[in-house]
């Protein structure tokens, strides 16, 4: 297994375009819009590529793309700089480490794995926020964001389906 023998998988296709899509949907869901006094949910769209990139194949570029996405979330949402970057990277690392257990499982199981990955990111965010702000975030608010995020699995599934077979060495 080496870089020299890697089959070309254009980074722009499986990393660049999903990044842009995630940024776009994050912008859309951050608009101050209410319908009948109800706000839009705030899912973490970045969890879709974070999970899918780890499942598709190990990559050197993906962690840095996640770092950029995390920094974008922190800057755009106005949170502490680095909070989402660390949380997403921990979730990515965990998914990457348990990748061999996930590959080849059915959709429902993969959805479960996606939920685990999201939970890792949320718990990391929760603990880091406790350290940073010296206060405990509302568990209900964390749960709502977790629920809104795990509903995004179909998009992750689509991304995995599209690029899973692009590099046969990692099937």
């Amino acid at each position, binding site marked *: *297994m*080496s*870089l*020299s023998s*890697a089959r070309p998988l254009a980074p722009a296709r499986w990393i660049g375009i999903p990044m842009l899509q995630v940024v776009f949907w994050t*912008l*859309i869901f*951050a*608009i*101050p*819009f*209410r*319908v009948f006094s109800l*706000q839009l949910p*705030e899912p*973490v769209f970045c969890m879709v590529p974070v999970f899918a990139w780890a499942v598709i194949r*190990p*990559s*050197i*570029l*993906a*962690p*840095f793309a*996640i*770092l950029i996405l*995390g*920094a974008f979330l*922190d*800057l*755009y*949402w*106005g*949170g*502490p*700089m*680095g*909070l*989402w*970057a*660390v949380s997403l*990277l*921990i979730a*990515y*690392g965990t998914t*990457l480490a348990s990748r061999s257990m996930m590959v080849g499982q059915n959709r429902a199981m993969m959805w479960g794995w996606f939920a685990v990955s999201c939970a890792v990111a949320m718990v990391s*965010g*929760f603990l*880091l*926020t406790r350290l*940073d*702000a010296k*206060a*405990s*975030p*509302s568990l*209900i*608010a*964390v749960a*709502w*964001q977790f629920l809104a995020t795990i509903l995004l699995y179909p998009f992750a599934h689509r991304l995995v389906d599209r690029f899973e077979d692009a590099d046969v060495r990692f099937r």
Partner: protein
Amino acid sequence: MSFRDSPFGEVKVPLAWMAAVAVIVAIVVAIALLVSDRRETFKTEAYGVTREVTDMVATPVSGAVAAPGRWSGLAMENVQAYFFAVSENRRLKKELKEALQWRDVAIALKDTNQRYEALMGLKTDPPIVMVDARSVTDSRGPFANTRLVNAGKERGVKPGNPVMSENGLVGRIIGVTTNASRVLLLTDIASRTPVMIDRTNARAVLTGDGGPNPKLEYLRGRNPVKSGDRILTSGDGGVLPRGLPVGTAVKGLDGRWRVILASDTAPIDFVRILLFEDFSQLAAEQQKELDAMEVPAPSEATAQQLQAVLKARAAIPGAAVPVAAPPSSVTAPRTITTTSAAPAMRASPPRRPAARKPAASKPVVASSPAPTPAPAAPPPPSAEVPF
């Protein structure tokens, strides 16, 4: 020369290990960012150039993205207004009837209040200048609750300025750049706001936790709050003005006292930024207002009275003759106020008039309740001439 043709083309690199190293390096960079973050400080330089540039770029982009949502919201409001016009009309008539009764009460109370202010020489805070802005983004997750609004440095906005909606306090400014400002909402986990319970005057600190209802912490006293109590800013610490509406107290499911925010009752699309920094700013404004007042020159009778006092003082053997500076336009009326209206308070420094009352409309000399009696006998040696 392509990579494969180069001498390094045959170097075998284990990709899985390299990916793991990349993850670790990225995590280290992210932790360094997190440790170096100083978001909550009120200092402009702590906000950072990166955040400023992001806000500057994000504001027009998000404004454009949010425009269809805003238009559709307005359209829905119009549709609602059309279908519920009759019931709305009934409700408004009822409210108007009540409001007219309240107006009469308010006029009477205002008059009483003005008299008390005049009697006590109370210094009331001058009105605070406000800037209108539109909210363009809204982050409402558990770890960050902020908004980006489209007014920045060019309109005088500064970090620390309080932000209000039409219903109540929303938060405060934590970052400012050209054409954009970042508002830290009351619900953010980093938000701490000194508040008071209107009914009991008890103090507390409103602490955000990422949820919709922030907590009331550090409550003191026995039963200082009960459900439905109105919560206002206390002004303690001088960061926020006193008396801004915050919300209503309610007992949370976790047994803690929480606040249903007044600003949450309607969409926070337009906000008002109060250009308030701290209480020294109010004092400076009051001083500026006082300096700008026109004080009437002393009348003939007043000048004669002053001369008489000075002569009497000079006639006392051993008493130091005060420096007979010509009565300036400022000192003379003050003397008259303390001598005539409050003779018992001669030793205390003369009070300034209330800041909200312009001197031109109510000159000090004219508002004296009784004419100043001319001194029939020379004052005792211990008496002080209050100027």
